[in-house]
């Protein structure tokens, strides 16, 4: 008797499971983006359904773009054109049953990326700190910057070149002007050129890109003018070699063994050629100063050069050398940024341990 009662209950349970989930296939615009993505979500009755998502092409023919197994899922279709209608079809197969649903949507362009809010706020804070310190420095506040050993050697290197009557070689990296490291190198070049003008020492600057060549000539010429020795400026000492990475290196190697510069400076962005340059320079007996933010090349400079500016020191160098209050202020701003980052890392770790993943998610733009 009991069993007889159970049967309808069981059946209704099964039915409710079956009908509680009405198959669903939604297509929605991904919010706060450039209107290039649509989010597709679906629910189908059975866990063992094999789901295929198709998308209509310009002729209206449906092609498969995604496949999955399970009762629900989602897929984001990207690289779409904004304000255009896209049609999708879902086909779910469970055993011999199959089900087909259609949906369509239009990606919309918005005016703000919400996922980049953390990015914007952090950027504003860091830039504001830099500006604040620059402003403080302008008003005459004394700002302390510790010694950067790689830079103190510059005078020594120039002095030695003068003593020996040999030139100085300056290599501004192998990147074009679109790399800030190159511009940082050119700023240091400006100080070095002033020194070499003062000591009447030749300065050789081979360049890999024409635009770097143009900028380097401007920099050196200006430095000679400021030093009051415009006639000592030799344009032919700042020249282009070739756009080719290893061709450029072959040329510099030739200069190093033939001109025998007493001091070499490798500052800027360097790749695999770092060790070729540094070892050849070492074999000629020059004092070598290097600096780059390419973390992978630092070991080679560290082992083969006398002084190496590691990572940020390259960017700090111009401030340190010029002692210009505005530049020093900006350096203080970077330091504020470092403390902020350390603090955020520590808070982030505590939050993760406490299971509060939203904090990390907010910074990575996944939660907003």
């Amino acid at each position, binding site marked *: 008797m009991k069993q007889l009662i159970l049967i309808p209950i069981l059946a209704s349970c099964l039915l409710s499971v079956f009908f509680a989930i009405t198959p669903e296939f939604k297509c929605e615009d991904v919010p706060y983006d450039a209107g290039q993505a649509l989010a597709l979500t679906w629910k189908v009755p059975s866990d063992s359904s094999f789901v295929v998502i198709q998308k209509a092409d310009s002729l209206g023919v449906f092609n498969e773009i995604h496949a999955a197994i399970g009762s629900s899922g989602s897929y984001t279709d990207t690289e779409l054109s904004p304000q255009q209608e896209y049609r999708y079809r879902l086909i779910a197969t469970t055993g011999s049953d199959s089900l087909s649903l259609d949906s369509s949507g239009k990606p919309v362009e918005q005016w703000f990326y919400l996922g980049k809010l953390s*990015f914007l706020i952090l950027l504003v804070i860091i830039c504001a700190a830099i500006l604040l310190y620059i402003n403080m420095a302008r008003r005459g506040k004394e700002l302390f910057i510790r010694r950067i050993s790689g830079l103190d050697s510059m005078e020594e290197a120039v002095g030695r070149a003068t003593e020996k009557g040999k030139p100085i070689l300056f290599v501004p990296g192998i990147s074009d002007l679109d*790399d800030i490291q190159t511009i940082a190198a050119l700023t240091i070049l400006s100080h070095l050129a002033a020194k070499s003008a003062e000591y009447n020492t030749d300065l050789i600057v081979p360049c890999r890109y024409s635009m770097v060549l143009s900028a380097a000539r401007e920099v050196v010429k200006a430095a000679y003018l400021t030093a009051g020795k415009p006639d000592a400026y030799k344009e032919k000492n700042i020249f282009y070699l070739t*756009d080719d990475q290893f061709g450029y290196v072959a040329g510099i190697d030739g200069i190093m063994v033939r001109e025998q510069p007493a001091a070499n400076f490798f500052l800027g962005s360097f790749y695999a050629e770092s060790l070729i340059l540094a070892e050849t320079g070492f074999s000629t007996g020059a004092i070598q100063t290097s600096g780059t933010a390419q973390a992978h090349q630092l*070991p080679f400079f560290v082992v083969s050069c006398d002084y190496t500016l590691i990572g940020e020191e390259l960017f700090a160098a111009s401030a340190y050398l010029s002692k210009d209050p505005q530049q020093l202020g900006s350096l203080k701003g970077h330091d504020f940024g470092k403390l902020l980052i350390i603090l955020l890392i520590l808070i982030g770790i505590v939050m993760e*341990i406490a299971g509060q993943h939203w904090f990390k998610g907010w910074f990575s733009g996944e939660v907003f």
Partner: protein
Amino acid sequence: MPEIMNVVGLYLGAFFTFCIFSFLYRDNPFYKFGEHVFVGLSAAYWLVYIFYKTLMPNLFTKLITDFSGNLILLIPAALGIMMLMRIHPKTTWISRYPLALVIGTSAGISILRYMQSDLLQQLTATMINPVVSGDGVTTIGNFLLIIGTICGIYFFYFSKKQEGVYAVPSKIGIWFLMISFGASFGYTVMARISLLIGRLEFLLKDWLHLIN
């Protein structure tokens, strides 16, 4: 005929390979020759390459096939010509405008790119729960990762004299830097040796057919 020229090519290749290798002994006429040929050839190569692969498809072809639809491309073309005004000292100042545009773009894009990929991504990658239950090695590793990152950043802190207590984290930071430099150096050895093996393979296999 192409077969003979192929052999000639291999001999040319082998000759220039030896020219460059001879630099390891000392600077010599062969290296000087190889070096100058390399510089000249590659400078022309990149000029031709940029012409066919960048200027043609991105500028000239577009302007020739659909002039009115690509009017905006006249701006970079004009800026490019302004850049060439450097040739004469009197007109050098004109080239400062394209230079300004290029540097403005680079500065803006650099801020964004480094903020995003080097700062934010590395920041969130370090926000981890260091304790992994049942995996002591990973837990130790995670602690090292956190300590190393924080002390490493502090090493680059310029506003304080690194003395007394303040010297401790920066000292630890240097240790981590040194370990990392040693590791990167050691890790690269393999790839560098295989470059030499590749060259020897060219000489012994393709050129001399000593090995197969």
